[in-house]
């Protein structure tokens, strides 16, 4: 187990370093930082002074290492647009996107686990096919169209839910559904496959033979084992949701990280863009690392590979 943790951890670290290198590259490609800091009208002398001051004349590798050092001490630079530290800008917006992501994940899990179980109980039946249809729709419906359909139906027609902002829990309902619905196919599929396997296993047959009633067997014996891979999928999907909330946040005017990213890209505020890419990627790497270690702890067979 120790060997597995070290190997898996080293890989995660390497991936994080590569991502940091790519983010640094994005920032470098985005233009001359000295000119961006000095402003359009600044004289050539001032720009040269800034360039020297911030070490922008140094070799790229030196600049990268310095940037990395600052990054590790929590300094992500200054936003061109807000003029405040990027970490501060991010910290303000992050709670909204996190709340949205967690609610979306909850919605996806609550919708798809029962669907997966029902489909697995009678593979090939009409109910299985309906579940298949729902999963197929989840993949094909463009997120932004789904948002507008919901806005029209629940926001305007019935006027049940607010259509923009993020002040109350009601504001999160439609965005969370839109974001979570895209993840339901993955969850449904993995639950269904896990349940079919578990229901055919010896321990389920033994439990049935001992006279345990079917609902108990399904929910207690089979489901518990089928849920193990769901944890991994949840880690991956949560990472995707954080990155994918851009469209939804702009439609519902929720000022989270996604909206911030869109704004920052439009305004050429690349210190912020780079920080968001880096943060979302890091969260993804940490989540999948945790899920892998958890799985290895539960299932010894994984460690040997």
């Amino acid at each position, binding site marked *: 187990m120790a060997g597995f943790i070290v190997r898996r951890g080293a890989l995660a670290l390497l991936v994080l370093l590569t991502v940091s290198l790519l983010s640094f590259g994005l920032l470098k490609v985005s233009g001359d930082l000295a000119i961006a800091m000095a402003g359009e009208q600044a004289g050539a002398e001032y720009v040269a002074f800034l360039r020297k001051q911030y070490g922008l004349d140094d070799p790229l590798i030196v600049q990268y290492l310095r940037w990395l050092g600052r990054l590790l001490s929590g300094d992500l630079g200054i936003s061109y647009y807000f003029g405040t530290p990027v970490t501060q800008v991010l910290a303000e917006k992050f709670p909204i996107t996190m709340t949205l992501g967690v609610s979306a994940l909850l919605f996806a899990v609550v919708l798809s686990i029962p669907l997966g179980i029902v489909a697995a109980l009678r593979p090939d039946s009409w109910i299985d096919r309906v579940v298949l249809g729902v999963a*197929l729709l989840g993949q094909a419906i463009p997120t932004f169209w789904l948002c507008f359909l919901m806005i029209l139906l629940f926001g305007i027609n019935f006027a049940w839910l607010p259509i923009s902002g993020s002040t109350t829990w009601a504001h999160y309902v439609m965005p969370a559904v839109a974001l979570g619905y895209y993840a339901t196919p993955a969850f449904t599929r993995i639950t269904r496959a896990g349940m079919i396997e578990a229901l055919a296993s010896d321990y389920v047959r033994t439990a049935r033979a001992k006279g345990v009633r079917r609902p108990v067997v399904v929910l207690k014996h089979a489901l518990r084992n089928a849920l193990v891979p769901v944890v991994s999928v949840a880690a991956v999907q949560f990472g995707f949701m954080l990155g994918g909330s851009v*469209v939804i946040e702009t439609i519902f005017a929720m000022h989270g990280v996604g909206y911030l990213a869109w704004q920052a890209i439009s305004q050429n505020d*690349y210190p912020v863009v780079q920080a968001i890419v880096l943060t979302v990627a890091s969260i993804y790497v940490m989540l999948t690392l945790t899920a892998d270690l958890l799985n290895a702890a539960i299932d010894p067979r994984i460690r040997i590979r």
Partner: protein
Amino acid sequence: MSTASDTTLVPSTTWGASIPRAWRRRGLVIGGTILLIVILMALLAPWLSPHSPYDQDLSKRLIAPWFLGGQDPAHLLGTDHLGRDYLARMLYGARVALMVGFGTVALSAPIGITLGLLGGYYGRRVDLIVMYLVMVRLSLPVVLVALAVVGLIGSELTIIMAVLAGLLWDRFVVVTRSLVMQLREREFVLAARAAGASDFAVLVREILPNLAAPLTVVATLEMANAILLEAALSFLGLGVKPPEASWGLMIAEAKDMVFFESWLINIPGFALFALVIGINLFGDGLRDALSIERGA
């Protein structure tokens, strides 16, 4: 490799044996028909609509489409807020969608398949490098990175395709790699190697043809993915630029009118939805047709 990513990387339109055969064939026919209709729409755009997608006529703004009681037979799908013919814009938008779909996959498939062949065939250190590349790619948030790069270097259609291709090759790698691992010890591969075939010949002539069916599914899946991503980029104002027509851009242009003229959003929205469903159904059906032919 990490189990977390393995579980989700299998082509996800596959439900294996859960769909009866007759249904799958129906999928091939329905999906193929939708795809064919959209391709014909794109190819025949200038002949299907007498209007240009760019010509504005402010005296004919926001005419309703025929199914909502539009009274103008010259504009079957009505006109937008600038009086441009909506049918013409839909047809030219189909061109963009298909070009992005086919173009992206044409670029991303060679990258992914090559990496997958190398990793699966040589194993060990080569495979480690390939899987490391896949992990890096997976950790990058697709929408954000695509937006950032397109915002930086420009939004011409070729750039959009290249950026999307640079982000959508991972599934090709994972599927190719795992299949090559199963195939490399099979008799026909060993026989070719014993007969003196080079690694390249074995990979291209013996192994690659056997991957056609599963890779078809990945290709269709990624094509649908690319189309949805282009629509999202254009919707956010960083993809296809006005006055060009893209379904995502059309939705963006109509979003302020969602309360009054919701059909302006629903027509391109439904078209995207139908095209993606069609591509997915077609891919699943084609895979089955191919694997039956090969007797697998």
